[in-house]
């Protein structure tokens, strides 16, 4: 594209770049100037928020809190992935089992993860263990359901071929079922990623003595609004970065999938489309 414009291609590049960035830049600048002489106690100037943010990153308080929270998120999500994928492969492939457990799964997954939080936290107290448990419990359903869907979507010609060649079961699961279901599994994990952050935040708001949610809610209790804002902005950055990281990993794992020509890929017409369908 840039080549065709000739020797001034860099102008084109800058314009392209600017179309993506001008609005966020303008909005942040507006926030900065409008809030600069803010008299409202609850809406401190952006400069003050940034100062608190940099200060608490510098002294390690925020990073420590983030490390605690994200370790819980990572562990809980990993547990959910292992459980969701393995049970999903089993249930998805075994049609007798699937038809039997489906109503139970539909019933259990309808119970919102956030509603389980107070029940678990009062029973097992606060600390990493219960937090990880509620995160895993909330995140397992999207992954389980997507894995089941992914396995069900495999063309019967593929499974028939595998059977005709008498592939050993372990090989069949690893080389046929799992790769075929991976696009759907990744879609499930992406949903669970959002769920895990929400559950992490809610569980730390409702109880706990460490983590990002606690950093924010202690700002409320000590009437330090700039701490509340700084923590919220920081969670936003973490959420954004984890999503970006996820998309990069997904592109790498699913490179073969995204390369499939449009006509043969039944569900997805473009990468952007795929992301939107999942949201």
């Amino acid at each position, binding site marked *: 594209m840039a080549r065709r414009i000739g020797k001034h291609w860099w102008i084109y590049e800058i314009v392209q770049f600017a179309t993506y960035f001008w609005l966020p830049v303008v909005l942040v600048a507006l926030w900065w100037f409008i809030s600069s002489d803010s008299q409202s106690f609850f809406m401190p100037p952006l400069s003050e928020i940034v100062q608190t943010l940099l200060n608490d990153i510098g002294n390690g308080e925020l990073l420590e809190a983030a490390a605690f929270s994200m370790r819980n998120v990572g562990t809980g999500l990993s547990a959910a992935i292992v459980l969701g994928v393995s049970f999903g492969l089993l249930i998805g492939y075994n049609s007798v089992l699937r038809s039997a457990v489906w*109503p139970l799964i539909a019933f259990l997954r309808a119970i919102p993860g956030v509603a389980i939080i*107070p029940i678990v936290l009062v029973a097992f107290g606060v600390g990493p263990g219960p937090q990880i448990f509620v995160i895993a419990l909330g995140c397992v359903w999207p992954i389980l359901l997507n894995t089941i869907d992914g396995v069900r979507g495999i063309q019967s010609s593929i499974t028939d071929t595998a059977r005709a060649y008498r592939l050993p079961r372990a090989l069949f699961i690893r080389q046929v079922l799992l790769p075929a279901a991976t696009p759907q599994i990744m879609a499930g994990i992406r949903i669970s990623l959002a769920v895990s952050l929400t559950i992490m935040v809610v569980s730390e708001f409702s109880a706990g003595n460490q983590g990002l949610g606690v950093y*924010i809610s202690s700002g409320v209790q000590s009437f330090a609004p700039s701490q509340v804002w700084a923590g919220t902005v920081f969670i936003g950055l973490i*959420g*954004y970065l984890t999503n970006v990281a996820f998309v990069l990993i997904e592109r790498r794992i699913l490179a073969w999938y995204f390369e499939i020509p449009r006509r043969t890929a039944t569900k997805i017409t473009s990468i952007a489309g795929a992301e939107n369908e999942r949201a």
Partner: protein
Amino acid sequence: MTLIVRRLATFAIFGLVWALAVHFGNVSPNILPQITDVALATVELLGRDTFYIAVATTVRDAAIGLAIASVLGVSAGVAIGAMPALERSTRLLIDFGRSFPQIALLPIFLLILGASSQMKVTLIAIGCFFPILLQSIYGARKMNSTLQDTVRAFRLPWRMRFFRVLLPSASPFILTGFRIAVVVSILVSVAVEITSPVTGIGRELAEARDFYETDIAIAYAIYAGILGVLVNAAVDQLERRIVRWHLSDKEA
């Protein structure tokens, strides 16, 4: 017939494992009450006035938040989807907003608006806004080029273009977004009620838990799940009615 037997059997096994684990594992009722107690609690709740008030409040606030999010999300989404330049300019903001765990905004709104229904509705609206927005953008972008050229050739005024062309052609996608948002509205509502003192299912649940009435708390969690299933079924019906033309189009 065997299918029904099998399905009932899975529920029976689930209940039996629960009952036996509590009975022989000497689990304190604080941690996991006996399944029969939970069943009794679900019945007991139906006789309490506070239960109906809590459900009504949660549903009302979720509906108001959802309505606000629908109006804003659809109009912004269709506009963004129809204008590629706008889509590029807002992409970073939207990506940031959708990956933000919106419930983390709770303390800020708690500071600004206090523990009120207003605060809850605001958070619900923010949570529901993004799924509707994204699907609306996607729907408007997907409009086929013949239609686009026709609209241009006839120089349709923007109002007509929006209401007669863009909105109907995007409506199947918008409804998908709406369906996601309906579930989100209940989730955010319950999450806000659990973490702040505003009335609703979540508040009742958290309070029951604070009094160590775990069976009542679990019963509320089950009702929250049933509520989610019911609103989902309602949206299903709505979807079938509104986009019947789209479905029949596909079949033909």
